[in-house]
């Protein structure tokens, strides 16, 4: 496993000039969802979703509870595979033009490219160091220098390095809530994804910790494409470039964030944003 994946990573790196040339195009859709229907057992959760998620932008999913925003997010890296009754009825999700539900696609490889941060911070009951390099360990990477380098880079990237650099071997569970969440972000970054999916990453945090995470999202935008689910509209307004509004499993409206918050096209969107329901 380790050798193969390393070689592949190198190959991909050799390809990067081609990708780089694309990077200039900020509106190129990285993820394209088309005619997407999804259900849990008999209960349909998503209806006919069509959307493009642009590269190197922050896209926010908003909507009332149970509207399907988290479900869609989990569809993007096939986390729904873990739920037995989950079923895709129609449509597809393409990442860089590849349908990720193609049977040839390996879900684990996909998830290495599309990382995820969860609502409740969930560090493993291991040391901070081990938490960050978990993704590398499972790929069989053992080189100490590479691991050390990754830990430092990712913790710095997640703005946690200064706080924990002296106690990397203490348990990840000993950190505060906000630190734990940033640790989870660092952990997700260590695998080297292109996309970070964040499922209400701040819902369990206090305002100070939330501000830190939001700041972090701003910085991460340069290197990653970010999709964030939030129930906090101010947060969506603060951090995102694009916003998609969901209601009852339907995508009601998707547009640039300013547009959505200033002058939404749909009446439902306006009603939600102005707090008349939801």
């Amino acid at each position, binding site marked *: 496993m380790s050798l193969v994946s390393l070689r592949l990573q190198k190959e991909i790196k050799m390809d990067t000039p081609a990708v780089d040339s694309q990077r200039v195009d900020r509106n190129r859709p990285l993820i394209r969802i088309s005619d997407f229907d999804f259900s849990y057992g008999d209960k349909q959760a998503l209806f006919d979703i069509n959307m493009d998620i642009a590269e190197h932008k922050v896209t926010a999913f908003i909507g009332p509870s149970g509207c399907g925003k988290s479900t869609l997010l989990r569809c993007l890296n096939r986390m729904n595979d873990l739920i*037995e009754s989950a079923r895709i009825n129609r449509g597809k999700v393409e990442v860089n033009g590849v349908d990720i539900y193609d049977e040839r696609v390996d879900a*684990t*490889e996909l998830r290495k490219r599309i990382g995820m941060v969860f609502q409740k911070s*969930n560090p493993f009951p291991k040391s901070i160091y081990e938490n960050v390099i*978990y*993704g590398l360990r499972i790929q069989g990477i053992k080189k100490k220098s590479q691991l050390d380098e990754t830990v430092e880079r990712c913790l710095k990237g997640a703005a946690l390095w200064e706080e924990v650099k002296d106690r990397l071997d203490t348990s990840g569970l000993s950190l505060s809530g906000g630190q734990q969440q940033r640790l*989870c972000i660092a952990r997700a970054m260590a*695998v080297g994804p292109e996309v970070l999916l964040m499922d209400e990453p701040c819902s369990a945090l206090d305002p100070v910790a939330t501000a830190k995470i939001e700041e972090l999202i701003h910085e991460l935008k340069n290197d990653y494409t970010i999709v964030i689910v939030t129930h906090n509209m101010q947060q969506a307004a603060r951090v995102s470039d694009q916003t998609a509004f969901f209601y009852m499993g339907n995508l009601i409206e998707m547009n640039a964030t300013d547009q959505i918050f200033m002058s939404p096209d749909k009446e439902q969107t306006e009603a939600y944003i102005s707090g008349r329901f939801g």
Partner: protein
Amino acid sequence: MDKRSFKSRYQLACNRKSFLGLTRESALKGLFGGNAFVSIVVLGLITLFLFKEGAGFFGQYRDSLLLYRQSGLEYVELMRGQQNALSALTRYLNSIRSRQVEKLAEEGYDFQESRAITEESEDFFYDFEDLAVPLREHVIEANEILSAARDSYQEMQNLSEHRKSLLESGRQDEADALEIREIDFALFFDIVKSRESEYIEINENLIRGIEEILPSVPYFGDAELQAKTERFKELAEMFIEEVSKFEENVLAWERARSVPISEAFTSFIFGKKWVTNSSIQDWYGLIPLMSGSFLVALVAMFFAVPLGIGAAIYVNQVARSLERDLIKPYIEFISAIPSVVIGFFGIAVFGTLIREVSGWESLAWIDFFPISERLNAFTAGGLLALMAIPTIFTLAEDALNNVPLSYKEASMAMGSTRLQTILRIIVPTALSGIISAVLLGFGRVIGETMVVLLCAGNRIEIPRFAEGIGVVFEPVHTMTGIIAQELGEVVHGSMHYRALFMVGLVLFLISLLINYFAQKIVMKFQISRG
């Protein structure tokens, strides 16, 4: 507002109906409390009772060991040790001869012919056997004298007990009619001791005899037999060297040495013999039983741990929900099979099956196959594994189930495979729960009675661990089995009865220890997970 008026306005103490100063509430509380008290007292009583009945054992055992020493029987036993070594040597010699006869039969000689061939070496065998006779007779004589003394001592003891009870009930004349003699062991022992020179002489003759005939060991053309005879020569020379050691021990033995209570304790805990109803001396040594119990338990855990944990991981992490809903109750159902039914299955089917399988041609390369006993540690262990699996499975599955789903999600979201997630995140997180599951499974196996009683073969001997893996196919006896087998026949309050209580107490302590550690591990685990 003044406090008092407040109180009178809001009178909170209410007058409930009461009977004999008890309200219904407090009566109920008393009822529940009383029950709890009774239960706790009774459960505590069990512990106390075990200790009480067991504790008397050491005193009695010490007395018995003291009698064994004072009567000089221990002295005889030392000589008997030498005699046993010699007879082992003779047995080995005989095995050579019977092997020779077998070989001749295989080669197609008929009885008369093979007899003619074996006759050549016959003299040597008989000569060697004859050498052992004087020692044997010496031992028997000494034993007869001393055990007669011991027996009459015990009879006198019984008589004086009887007299005491007669006196207590006021039957003076009957008591007076009893004739009680003092038995002085020293007198008897001196007789035996005075013949020590004879013993030394016997030994000298023995050594000389062996040395004389050893060069005339018959020569066999056959390589196998020849190797055996060579080995016999070595053994014989080793025996000659040992004789002086035996002699030293015999000469150095002192009758007057006292038996401290600690010796009774150590010869119970570390004793290598469990012999009851013996005419010479009863031995209550725990080691043969304990090693049997642990051997059976090890066999059981060898199968139960991988299977139980493997099944738990499969059902919890891999299986589909329909599969899970069927397998879980099924395995729980297995735990309800009564042990005696499993034991019966072992006798009726499993033991025979194992023996048949061990006789297969294709398995002949295993050096301890085919096995001779169908009831052995392996039979019992294999069946006990089936009883331990539900325990291990249920508790391990529980522990796996308690691992937060978010761990699994986090790991999967980073692109690890299911197996990586299981091995690196889920199992390590649930590890303490799994360990305590294994411990409790072990406790179940150690404490199980009926299966080992029916299927372990019930031979009270320390398994020959030196023989390697083949030891698991030896019949053994266990701590639980010995209680079940012997408790029905013992006299209330006798040393044997108390010895069985001591075994029960040891079992009790082992199971407490296992439970304690299992709980401790789980508790530690809960704290660490925060």
